[in-house]
């Protein structure tokens, strides 16, 4: 497949950045072995910049690499990000994990990425029924913060409203405690504690995860339902008010636990209670780093 205009723009930006020495590494996408997949590419030499590409198959959130020591050692880094992924960069800046001065954000306009399982079957159209739920509620088709912007050649995503994103949340909320319990017991029963969700998350950057701490043992280590539930609860709790909704955890889960139903529910709660959305402003104080005297108090006697 020939280079698209998007790819050319990306490559030009990357070349310029590397040549001028403004960055020493660029993280981007390149075409995978399978034409329906994109894979991450790490470019340190100008000549490799030509391999950079972008398409609605660029599903992965590359911001996850920013937490890796191997990447950090490059110092100044450029990164290709969609609007959703870019919020992760912002959150990392808010939490002092990277410095704004050390990162060049190459934003790409994105009108939705195709679900990988559908793409694998040959689907190439970006439409309401082929993209992820997160794309249907996306308000950042153009990243909120960028140094360079590459516009999309894809048509805008048309929403008929027929497909209800995360509709399962409302259904779950309306259930009785016992039904919810059963639903999640069933889901967490599948969990094998592989921690792929954690590895794929750009905001799970602790060098020692709470799960690895054993005095006390916060989470039962054996892979059984109760410990699994605890792991999933703590993971969600640690991401509440922080998760930017990239969906990588759910995509990484080998046993298909619908993790985004939890993350998204938390995001809705935090927004309803505190009017805060994660990753939109690098100067904003994280929602759990501040308080208001007028915070929601109804549940306390």
């Amino acid at each position, binding site marked *: 497949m020939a280079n698209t205009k998007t790819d050319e723009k990306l490559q030009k930006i990357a070349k310029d950045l590397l040549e001028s020495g403004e960055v020493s590494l660029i993280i981007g996408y390149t075409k995978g072995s399978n034409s329906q997949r994109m894979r991450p590419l790490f470019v340190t030499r100008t000549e490799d910049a030509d391999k950079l590409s972008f398409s609605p198959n660029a599903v992965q959130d590359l911001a996850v690499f920013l937490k890796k020591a191997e990447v950090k050692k490059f110092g100044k880094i450029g990164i290709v990000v969609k609007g959703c992924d870019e919020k992760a960069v912002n959150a990392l800046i808010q939490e*002092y*994990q990277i410095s704004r001065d050390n990162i060049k954000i190459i934003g790409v306009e994105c009108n939705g990425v195709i679900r990988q399982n559908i793409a694998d079957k040959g689907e190439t159209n970006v439409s309401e029924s082929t993209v992820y739920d997160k794309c249907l509620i996306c308000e950042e088709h153009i990243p909120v913060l960028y140094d360079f912007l590459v516009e999309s050649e894809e048509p805008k995503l048309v929403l008929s409203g027929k497909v209800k994103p995360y509709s399962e949340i409302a259904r779950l909320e309306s259930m009785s405690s016992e039904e919810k319990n059963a639903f999640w017991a069933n889901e967490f029963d599948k969990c094998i504690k592989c921690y792929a969700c954690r590895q794929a998350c750009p905001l799970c*950057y602790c060098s*020692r*995860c709470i799960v690895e701490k054993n005095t*006390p043992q916060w989470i039962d280590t054996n892979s059984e339902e109760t410990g699994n539930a605890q792991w999933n609860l703590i993971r969600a709790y640690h991401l509440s008010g922080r998760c930017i909704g990239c969906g990588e955890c759910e995509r990484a889960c080998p046993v298909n636990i619908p993790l985004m139903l939890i993350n998204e529910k938390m995001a809705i709660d935090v927004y309803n209670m505190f009017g805060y959305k994660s990753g939109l402003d690098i100067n904003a*104080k994280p929602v*759990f*780093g*501040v308080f208001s005297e007028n915070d929601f108090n109804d549940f306390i006697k």
Partner: protein
Amino acid sequence: MARIGVFVCWCGSNIAGTVDVEKVREEAAKIPGVVSALDYKYMCSDPGQNSLRNIIKEKNLTGIVLAACSPHMHENTFRKAAAKEGLNPYFVEIANIREQVSWVHENKERATAKAVDLMKMMVEKVKRDKPIEDVRVPLNKKALVIGGGIAGIQAALDIANGGVEVILVEKEPSIGGKMIQLDETFPTLDCSSCIMTPKMVEANQHPNIKLYTYSEVEDISGYIGNFKIRIKKKARSVIEKDCTGCGECWNACPMHKNIKSEFNVNLSERTAIYVPFPQAVPLVPVLDRSVCLHFKKGGKCQKCYDACGPKCINFDLQDEIIEETVGAIVASTGYDLMDTSMYGEYGYGKYKDVVSGLQFERLLSASGPTEGVIKRPSDGKTPQTIVFVQCVGSRDPEKGVPYCSKVCCMYTAKHAKLFAHKVHGSQSYVFYIDIRSTSKGYEEFVRSTMEQDGAIYLRGRVSKIYEDDGKLIVKGADTLSGNQVEIAADMVVLATGVIPKQGSDKLAQMLGISYDKYGFFTESHPKLRPAESSTAGIFLAGMAQGPRDIPESVVSGSAAASKILGLFSKNEYEVEGTIANVNESTCVACFYCQRVCAYNAISKKEIKDRSGKLIKVVANVNPGLCTGCGACVNACFSKSIDVKGFMDDQIYAEIKALAI
């Protein structure tokens, strides 16, 4: 291996009446690691403590648990006893089986079961106690006093006389505060300025006191022993060291109309360059640039400069920033009087002859606008009938504040008395709800105002004041006779309530001390630590803490001073060791801990290798500031910070001890 001793106290029948103490002891003995279990009638008694100490020694205990009364009662007692035997005092845990078991439950069986549970929890906790060493912080032996009213001056003088250097910062051009505005003081009727002026002069001349007037504290950082402060010395436009206070400048100032005198509470006027009052300390004028012609009209007027002998007026002087380091601080910022214009029914602001208590004080004062002759503001006539209204703003949750302002009963009695003394044949009426005259000589003072000076007291509030034929008609109630009364007065004095100095909440935030919903600074403990703020090294004095009179303000100033002198009597300050502690190897420097810390106790620490290359940044706890609240622990995702004495694994062990 843990060697724990458990001691079950009977507390006479207080515990033993409801809890089977023997059973608790038996259960304790069964717990692995417990090497000694004992029950005794009164553990806190001397023999009780002695047996505790003996067993620590004999059994070489590594920790002890007392199943006894609340830790708030005797934790310290037992810690001290343990320390005497060389056991780390923090290896003492209390299971509260009195206040939270025997006194609140009735079923013996169940109460005993609960007592056993609580004892088990503490055994598990004490097993996991880590030795805690109290922290020592070096002290800079210099003090800062913020606010130069009577409380601040007293504190500064006491500290200075103790041989410690003091910086006294006052916002206004002169020290003296509200007290210097008063005429005479209750209940002895000493002249306020006669007793205040010498103190002001002493503070100014004391070799250990550095006085900054017309200055404000702009920034404070650091912690006990080591506070860094920035003081803004506002430009006076007068070179202080050259000024003789001769007065030629203010006599020459053409701006002598329409600028209200703050000192005389708007009852007189002042010039643009002025001293607030003749006995001001320092006796150096201030040029008020907001009204000065020189500044308003492009530099043309310089009459004051021309009149000045030593030529010490300098229009170009700039604000100065002074930086100091001190070991302790006294916050004595004083109070304001409430604005009473919210009482539409009283007509303050509408009727000139309705004045506030402080205004009346100025009308009584020989240095006031009428030179001590009582004249009413509207026409300068001497009033024959004055109505005094108490509780204006105070004890009024609807329009004012719910608290009692404490001084109004007494100053109103004083006003009525002085009015009777100054205007013969006059009559005063005082509307009151309750008379609060509880200090030495106060009740006698109020009684004599009624009995000797003829003031008529009516128990009831005033509902409305209006003007009629040059008189102020006061509609009030006398609830004792059950009558509505109307009095035609020449003047009305409202006993205005007190509120904290404007901006005191901002200062409290800067200092990191707590304050109540009105803005009064909160004591560390209202009874037992009344001179301390919630933050170590910062002390409180005067009305900034709440309504109080002059003697109480002086006492509180001295109390703060003695606390500071006590603190400075050692070279180091000891901080309780139950503070937060960072695991640097796992900290990822997200600094949520810093965000939630109310004490600015967490800072960034750079870890470098031997060559000086930065390896990582981690959170660092300042032991002088940390209070051990543990908010940081909850904020940490990777559990890289913990609080000594309440560590996560201890809490987990407690929960586990309760497992069923």
